[in-house]
């Protein structure tokens, strides 16, 4: 009986949290559709999400692309390695690793920062103060972050894809003895429009998830510094899981064949 009670309680709590998240997202989307849009705030958020994430995302992509080329070369050296390495690197990076690793890195950096900032504003009554100054916290805090996330992540992922492929190119041409011209040619041959499109769609969705989780957990934090700390952790963990899950769903839908 005890066990059933616990299961019941946990399930109820989970549904309550899900409902709260749905309401939060619905409210944010509702505001998204209604002007005015706070351009200055969006630009500032885009800078902090995008520009300052460039180093970490670039390095991640570079190392991953390089390691990938090395692994594929080792694994496929018995076959026609020349074309396999370039093809697998570009497909793996553009379809999966670029958006997913980029999304995860940005989630680690940005969801936590958003949750900490908005959470601090919540516990120090700054969000209440916004309301008393006739400023909707959703319009001022949440919507600019969501827009910036959705717009910025695709740009970051394009950069990540290019650098990732370049990482593979470096290893292949510098240590594995590939011909640069041939390698690039194969890369271009295997890169398809669907791959790029799915990569960008994933990035936009991940950007939404990152900003939503950061804002949501920050907005609903309570109980001082400890509560804000919990909110940042929850934001990152939930963003990670949702990104991986969304990635799976999009991959299945796009590449069902």
């Amino acid at each position: 009986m005890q066990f059933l009670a616990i299961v019941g309680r946990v399930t109820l709590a989970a549904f309550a949290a899900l409902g709260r998240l749905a309401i939060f997202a619905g409210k944010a989307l509702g505001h998204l559709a209604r002007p005015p849009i706070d351009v200055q705030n969006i630009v500032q958020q885009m800078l902090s999400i995008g520009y300052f994430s460039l180093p970490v995302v670039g390095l991640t992509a570079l190392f991953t692309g390089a390691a990938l080329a090395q692994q594929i070369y080792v694994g496929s050296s018995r076959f026609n390695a020349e074309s396999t390495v370039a093809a697998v690197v570009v497909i793996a990076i553009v379809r999966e690793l670029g958006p997913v690793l980029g999304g995860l890195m940005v989630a680690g950096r940005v969801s936590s920062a958003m949750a900490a900032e908005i959470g601090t504003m919540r516990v120090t009554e700054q969000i209440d103060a916004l309301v008393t100054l006739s400023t909707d916290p959703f319009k001022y805090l949440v919507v600019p972050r969501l827009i910036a996330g959705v717009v910025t992540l695709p740009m970051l992922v394009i950069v990540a894809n290019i650098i990732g492929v370049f990482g593979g190119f470096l290893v292949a041409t510098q240590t594995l003895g590939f011909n640069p011209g041939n390698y690039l040619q194969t890369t271009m041959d295997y890169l398809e429009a669907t791959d790029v499109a799915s990569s960008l769609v994933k990035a936009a969705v991940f950007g939404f998830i990152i900003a939503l989780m950061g804002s949501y957990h920050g907005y609903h934090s309570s109980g001082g510094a400890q509560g804000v700390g919990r909110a940042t952790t929850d934001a990152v963990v939930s963003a990670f899981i949702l990104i991986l899950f969304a990635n799976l769903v999009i991959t299945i839908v796009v590449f069902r064949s």
Partner: protein
Amino acid sequence: MSAPAKIALKGLAKRFGQKVVLDGVDLEVAEGESLVVIGGSGTGKSVLLKCIIGLLRPEAGEVRIDGQETRRMSAAERKAQMAKFGMLFQGAALFDSLPVWENVAFGLLRAQRMKKRAAREIAIEKLSRVGLDAAVAELYPAELSGGMKKRVGLARAIAAEPEIIFFDEPTTGLDPIMSDVINNLIVECVRDLGATTITITHDMVSARKIAHNIAMLHDGRIIWHGPKEAIDRSGNPYVDQFIHGRAEGPIKMAVRAG
């Protein structure tokens, strides 16, 4: 029939989980009146203000502003109503991502869409009224002392010259001279701008200076309400204990013997 009270509360109740904070508060504040609310720490004074202004949703009772019941309002009406209010938070609640002057001008810039230059001028004028000079305008909240934050919060609350202003402990943490400056400012807001104000304070000197009427909150209810001149002969042992600051009396402070 006379005009409806600016603020009228009836049977206002608010609790957090099991803890009952407000348990049927009835209170009226006339237009242009300065009401001071006193009461022990943790009796729900801040909660009371937040229920009136709409930051917290009471479980029961009604809040009428200018005769209008707030709970049945549409989003647009609510927004229009919020424009009537200004509030100084107990913890100042300054936006720490913005410099002081943008904090003060926030409502002017956002809600009223005023031009930056004009809003800045008003902000600096309001800052000077709380005893802060123009150099402070460029600082960030993290660079201010506690008392300075409070005064910036005050300047922000009055910047848009709202009809109703709530001051949550405006003089706590200020030296006696600055306290008097702030008291005068609140008096001016009421006298010159015709604002209706509710001030929470523990400071009886300041209460006597700014109040028309004083109300005392205890155990979730208003246990005494009357003109400030009457407070010394209220005949209410709770009020007497509070205004004389005596540890002995009917109010038992929840102090755990260590």
